[in-house]
């Protein structure tokens, strides 16, 4: 039954879109279609939320992200749901590796028949799972992973969009690493030597390549004195840290996250690395909260966009204050960037459904939601995001230096040295590869 009804709606929806685009402006035609299918199912809308619930990435990323999904679903349900339908949230674990995630996504779509998957922190998982959206015909929204390769083709300009039904409601790692390069140019104009230590998979590799390209353009005199690629979840970084100290760079670039960032930072403290160089953490925003007051001061931290619990200042942007307060009340911690990313994902979906639904009157099909999501702009606790034609969101980039204050039990971003790079400075134009764009500067 379910299948036939859905199919029917899909066909009808296709007709509606067809009619809508062909006869845009012709209201009569449109209303006729609306009448035909102004139906909203009674059962809840099934949203699968996939984040790390176990393992080393759970505490700093997966759990905050999933908490936010839960908190916001409750909030949306309390306010009447999406077009009257309550959200049924299926929280799933992202652990187990790429292959397990491909299988899980297939099960969610084909067996559980979810309406949308909002998920994925790991870039590897994103790259593996997003192709399933088109293959299996369901909406998949990447909410946190960073690799720019996800939506880019192999050459510029690339066909847009890459996936009909695959989206990402956050900016790419291009923003993080271009931003870091801009920070270094501004605050350390005289340095000569840089090095990189990054986890050995898509995320680490792509982060470093963007950073390296940006540095070449912005500070051509700087020399790369070494790159290290420890595998994810390495427990002993002493050899890498000693090698870094031996290579004596001025600044070390790293895209470490989660437990790797914690282990590396702790062991680097033990070996005295921070006495000799500055570390630039591309998405370091949650790490000081994880480590506490031991986290060294004056290190460069990126916020994966403009996501910080103190930015935009809460007195100036009530949405952030509200979000931070609700989250802190419920979970006893300040929201970190994965929380903001989760917010962007679930509200983008809600807005897209409502936008598509308002055109047709009924519950929109997957394709209609995808259409509505393209070009969507919404307000978030961090400001605004826009989802462009390449199905990727763009946002501003926030960067700063750690500083210990008396108010918080962990270093915060030094308010004196906060930098916000506008969207167009840290995101390439639609259809242009990030690397090609950097090379065109």
């Amino acid at each position, binding site marked *: 039954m379910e299948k036939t009804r859905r199919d029917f709606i899909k066909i009808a929806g296709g007709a509606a879109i067809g009619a809508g685009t062909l006869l845009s402006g012709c209201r009569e035609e449109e209303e006729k279609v609306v009448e035909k299918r102004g139906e909203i199912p009674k059962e809840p809308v099934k949203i699968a939320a996939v984040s790390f619930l176990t393992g080393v990435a759970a505490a700093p990323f997966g759990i905050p992200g999933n908490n936010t999904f839960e908190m916001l679903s409750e909030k949306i349900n309390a306010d009447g749901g999406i077009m009257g339908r309550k959200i049924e949230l299926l929280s799933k*674990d992202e652990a187990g*590796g*790429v*292959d397990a995630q*491909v*299988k899980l996504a*297939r*099960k969610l779509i*084909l*067996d559980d028949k979810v309406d949308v998957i909002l998920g994925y922190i790991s*870039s*590897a998982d994103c*790259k*593996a799972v997003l*192709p*399933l959206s*088109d*293959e*299996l*015909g369901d909406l998949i929204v990447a909410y946190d992973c960073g690799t720019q390769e996800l939506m880019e083709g192999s050459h510029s300009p690339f066909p847009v969009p890459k996936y009909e039904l695959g989206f990402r409601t956050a900016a790419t790692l291009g923003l993080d690493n271009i931003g870091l390069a801009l920070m270094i140019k501004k605050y350390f104009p005289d340095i000569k030597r840089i090095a990189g230590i990054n986890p*050995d*998979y*898509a995320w680490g*590799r792509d982060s470093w390549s963007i950073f390296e390209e940006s540095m070449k353009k912005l500070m051509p005199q700087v020399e790369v004195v070494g790159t290290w*690629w420890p*595998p*994810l979840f390495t427990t002993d970084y002493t050899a890498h840290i000693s090698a870094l100290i031996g290579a004596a760079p001025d600044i070390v670039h790293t895209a470490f996250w989660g437990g790797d960032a914690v282990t590396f930072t702790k062991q680097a403290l033990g070996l005295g690395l921070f006495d000799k160089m500055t570390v630039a953490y591309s998405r370091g925003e949650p790490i000081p909260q994880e480590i506490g007051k031991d986290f060294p001061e004056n290190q460069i931290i990126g916020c994966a966009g403009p996501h910080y619990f103190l930015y935009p200042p809460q007195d100036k942007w009530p949405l952030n204050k509200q979000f931070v307060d609700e989250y802190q009340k419920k979970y006893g911690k300040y929201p970190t960037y994965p929380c903001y990313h989760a917010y962007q994902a679930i509200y983008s979906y809600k807005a897209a459904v409502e936008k598509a639904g308002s055109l047709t009157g009924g519950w929109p099909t997957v394709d209609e939601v995808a259409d509505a999501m393209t070009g969507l702009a919404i307000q978030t606790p961090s400001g605004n995001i826009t989802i462009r034609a390449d199905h990727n969101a763009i946002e501003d980039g926030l960067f700063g230096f750690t500083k210990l204050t008396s108010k918080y039990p962990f270093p915060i971003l030094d308010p004196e040295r906060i930098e916000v790079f506008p969207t167009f400075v840290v995101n390439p134009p639609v259809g242009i590869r990030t690397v090609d764009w950097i090379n065109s500067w």
Partner: protein
Amino acid sequence: MNLKRFIFNKRSLIYLVVLIFLLIIPFILSPFNLILFESAITFAIVGLGFNLLLRYTGLLSFGHGAYFAAGAYAVAMVGRYVPSIYSIEFLIPIAIIASLVLSAIFGFICVRHTKIFFAILTLALSMLLFALLFKFYSVTGGSDGLYIPTPSIFGVTFKRRPEFLSGPYYYFLLVIFIICYMVMKVIVSSPFGKALQAIRDNETRAELIGIRVKRYRFYAFIISGTFAGIGGSLWTFVNGHVTPDVSHWFFSGEIVYMTLLGGFFIFEGPIIGAFVFTFLKLYAMGFTEYWMGIIGVTLILLVLLLPTGLAGGVVTIFNKLKTRKVLGGT
């Protein structure tokens, strides 16, 4: 003679029933379960090859994932670097060659040993391949693995994967599976197969009757590895993605488990094991987050209580019933 004919007929009847069942599967199963079923078929092919070593040559490989990976990565690499020949009729032969070459290299090292040494060596070598696939990020995609696009079959292309998997690919897979089944069936009953069993039973004696023990182990290893490679290449199309995990010893352990679950004493055992394992794992995963524990406990119970596996257990019960009947008759 009549009795023989009767048995022959009964056996061919079973084959016929199974075949008809296999032919109508796509009309019975939901797309999701069909995909699982297809991946089970690919594992069944791997199990057939694996059991040539375990059951018929007496060698326990804990690194069969490596040859599976060879087949799978052959497909992925062609897809990445030579997309112009990304068509199933080219991909399968390429995968066969890749896994054949790899199993020849690794086999050359491993067949000098038996028992636990063989197991450890195969494990170590598969981990070597794992490390290489993992480290050479720019070539292999590292731990991210590689995306496997939907291939064309004899010039026909497909847009969405379910459409590909639920129709032509299923029957293609079925044909390959039946060929593999028959080839392996003949191999184990051929003089060559008998030679392997002789080596398994008594290496010294086998040498004495003029069998070059190491060489025959080597041949068996290559055949076994190639079957794993064929299974691996077919599996990639179902899965749509391949990562170095398939060369990890953990994955090889699953192949061993599958074979044991079905019962390695019986030719069809690994096939049954592949199907039961695939669905058991899925339903254990759906039923509880502690599915690994469930798999572990079933494995322990199997080893302790039912070492001949499911098929072996059924045969034992069947034989018991038969003896009782005979006894009752006299």
